[in-house]
């Protein structure tokens, strides 16, 4: 407990630390379900590597970007922006309660980013020329696409990778032998020394590339409906990342805790609701200020297709913004879940629409993703969900109470004792018993 026992301290919560899910078997029905979809998607992705893009996808010269870019990357990395949204809330804005849910954000964020990057790899036509990225003199620094191409893999591999490292090392520490423990203890201070610098980078980089995703659309000029095409697109894309990121972490926490019968920390969830609500308000303020400045506000209410889409997106974001101002809503899990979903959907509609629906090249062409294109896209998403389902069982991701941790460690040490009596101390054996 804190010296003066104030609430809101970093560690004194109902949820006190990440605890692996240990009662359930590793392989469960949802895992099998998502793995199957992932397997189909990845097999098709492999076929795509050997096949030209044309016969495989619904893309064409007018709609040159299909759902792999516009949905799996430009839209879903917003859901994967939890580490940015929650991390900034915790480390910069000092919402110290939120530290305990960082790992949920980090794992899901890393997976969405990694899946997005894989999707991007399969989407580009000449990936073998990508090596130019390591030579800055080959960069066209005016290009938002370059910013994304450099920043996104760097962020995912280096910064999200680093932030997820303690979780990995913790597992190795608890399952390792004496020498492993000594080595890890020796390296821990170094890790902690660079940690604040690395998380600073971990917030600067996504601010850069999440806004650059919006900046990509600027060059498309008046192909994009004026309700979306705006010099403020980069900022709005970034703000939508906060809306989606905070919403998605809340969603994942609620769903996972329901599924694995973890007790909820209402105080903390309420704080998350607050982050969602603030993100939504900031987004809407900038969105409508922009529409007013560009004199498009009138068009927003003419109720044609584009206006309806805008109002849908606004409604989906306005509901959580207002509803979550009420502490009662924030503290009711069902309402929090529904509003979090609403925020996610709103942010996703905003990010997706200008890339495809409100994108009309002069050439009267159509785009609808082909079946393999859709299956691959679904496959990547399923892969994220399947891996997440495994990760929470092997690593201390989902938050729990201290008593939960103690119980888990009792169960595990029992399993290890049995293993040792069977003289099997291999890492694989420990992996199998978790």
């Amino acid at each position, binding site marked *: 407990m*804190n*010296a003066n026992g104030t609430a809101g301290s970093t560690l004194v919560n109902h949820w006190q630390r990440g605890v692996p899910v240990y009662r359930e078997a590793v392989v469960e029905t949802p895992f099998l379900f998502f793995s199957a979809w992932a397997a189909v998607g990845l097999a098709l992705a492999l076929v795509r590597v050997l096949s030209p893009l044309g016969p495989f996808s619904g893309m064409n010269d007018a709609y040159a970007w299909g759902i792999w870019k516009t949905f799996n990357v430009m839209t879903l990395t917003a859901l994967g922006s939890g580490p940015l949204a929650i991390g900034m809330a915790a480390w910069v804005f000092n919402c110290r309660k939120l530290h305990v849910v960082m790992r949920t954000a980090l794992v899901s964020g890393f997976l969405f980013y990694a899946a997005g990057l894989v999707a991007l790899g399969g989407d580009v036509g000449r990936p073998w*020329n990508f090596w130019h990225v390591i030579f*800055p003199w080959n960069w*066209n620094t*005016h*290009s938002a696409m370059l910013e994304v191409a450099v920043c996104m893999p760097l962020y995912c591999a280096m910064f999200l990778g680093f932030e997820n490292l303690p979780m990995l090392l913790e597992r190795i520490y608890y399952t390792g032998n004496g020498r492993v423990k000594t080595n890890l203890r020796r390296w821990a201070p170094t890790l902690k020394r660079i*940690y604040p610098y690395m998380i600073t980078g971990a917030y600067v980089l996504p*601010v850069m590339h999440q806004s650059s995703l919006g900046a990509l659309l600027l*060059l498309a000029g008046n192909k994009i409906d004026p309700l979306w095409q705006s010099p403020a697109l980069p900022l709005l894309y970034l703000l939508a990342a906060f809306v989606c990121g905070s919403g998605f972490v809340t969603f994942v926490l609620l769903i996972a805790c329901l599924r694995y019968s973890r007790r909820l920390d209402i105080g903390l969830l309420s704080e998350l609701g607050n982050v969602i609500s603030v993100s939504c308000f900031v987004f809407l303020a900038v969105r409508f200020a922009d529409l007013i400045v560009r004199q498009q506000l009138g068009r927003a209410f003419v109720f044609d297709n584009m206006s309806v889409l805008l109002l849908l997106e606004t409604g989906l974001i306005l509901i959580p913004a207002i509803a979550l101002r009420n502490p009662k809503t924030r503290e009711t899990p069902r309402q929090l879940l529904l509003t979090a979903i609403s925020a996610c959907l709103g942010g996703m509609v905003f990010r997706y629409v200008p890339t495809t629906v409100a994108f009309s090249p002069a050439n009267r062409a159509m785009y609808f993703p082909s079946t393999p294109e859709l299956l691959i896209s679904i496959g990547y998403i399923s892969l994220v969900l399947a891996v997440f389902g495994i990760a929470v069982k092997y690593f201390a991701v989902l938050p729990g109470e201290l008593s939960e941790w103690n119980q888990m460690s009792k169960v595990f040490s029992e399993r290890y004792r049995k293993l040792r009596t069977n003289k099997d101390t291999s890492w694989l054996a420990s992996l199998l018993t978790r």
Partner: protein
Amino acid sequence: MKLAVNRRQLLKGIMGAGGAVAGGLVCSVAAEEHPAYPVASPDAVGMLYDNTKCTGCRACMTACSEANGLPAETLCPIDPAISTGLWDVPADLDSKTKNIIKLYREKDGDNFSFVKRQCMHCLDPACVTGCPFGALKKNTWGAVTWNSSFCIGCRYCEVACPFDVPKFQWDQWNPKIVKCELCFDQRLKNNQEPACTAVCPTRAVIFGNRNHLLAEAKQRIADTPGKYFEGRVYGEHEAGGTQVLYLSGVAFDKIGLPKLGNTSLGHYATKVSSVIYKWLSGPIVVAGILGSVIKRNWKRHEAEAVEAEKETGLPEQL
């Protein structure tokens, strides 16, 4: 012997030097700007197409395909009946067609007009601004050319181009971006004019210095008042100006030339980011502010973590 610098100072020195190198690199590449209204360089070349002179003979299409080694597009997506596999029947610019003559006919009435479409060779091309590794670039004489070894196939050029010009080889495993390059390698380099202008029997499309072509176009407008739509040259100002210029007897948007603003798209897209990213100053400032706040909060967090560890016996989880 005691070292003159401790590790922290050394680290700071290394980081500083690295930053300086990175900064220098950024400066050196970020030399050129995107003015709102770019000015054509004195040696910029281009084409002037006057559809009142065009007879639609399509000699330019054949010449283009021949000069560029392009195969015939024997499948016409608009009318499968004429897709006999015998003739070159492209419906629009595509990965086998860098240059096309299209026919516009009024729905009611006898008015018709041809239009030649190919790359406009913008003064500040959106495709070049967007191309991440500079595969597309503004080459000598302002020709917009494509270099296969820098292209990653992201197709941002297709999304960016306001004239829908760059095309992608969807049916190839190692796809290329196909667009008119003003016959740069094939002819321009050897002091020859592009194939299309060279063969045009009525001189409906002519090649020359952009400034001369613009003067010529304005002369034609002045000589025959009322003949040309809006009495102006398409491409003089569109999207910041293009090196291919059009004179038309019918409305520009009817023959597929889009209505565009006069500022360059590159300017619109980079006017804010070029300030923020100048010498990476924006990201560095943000990193500085965030870093100092995080450092402060980090210390407090660590102090609390030590307390908690004493109490529970469990190390903190980052």
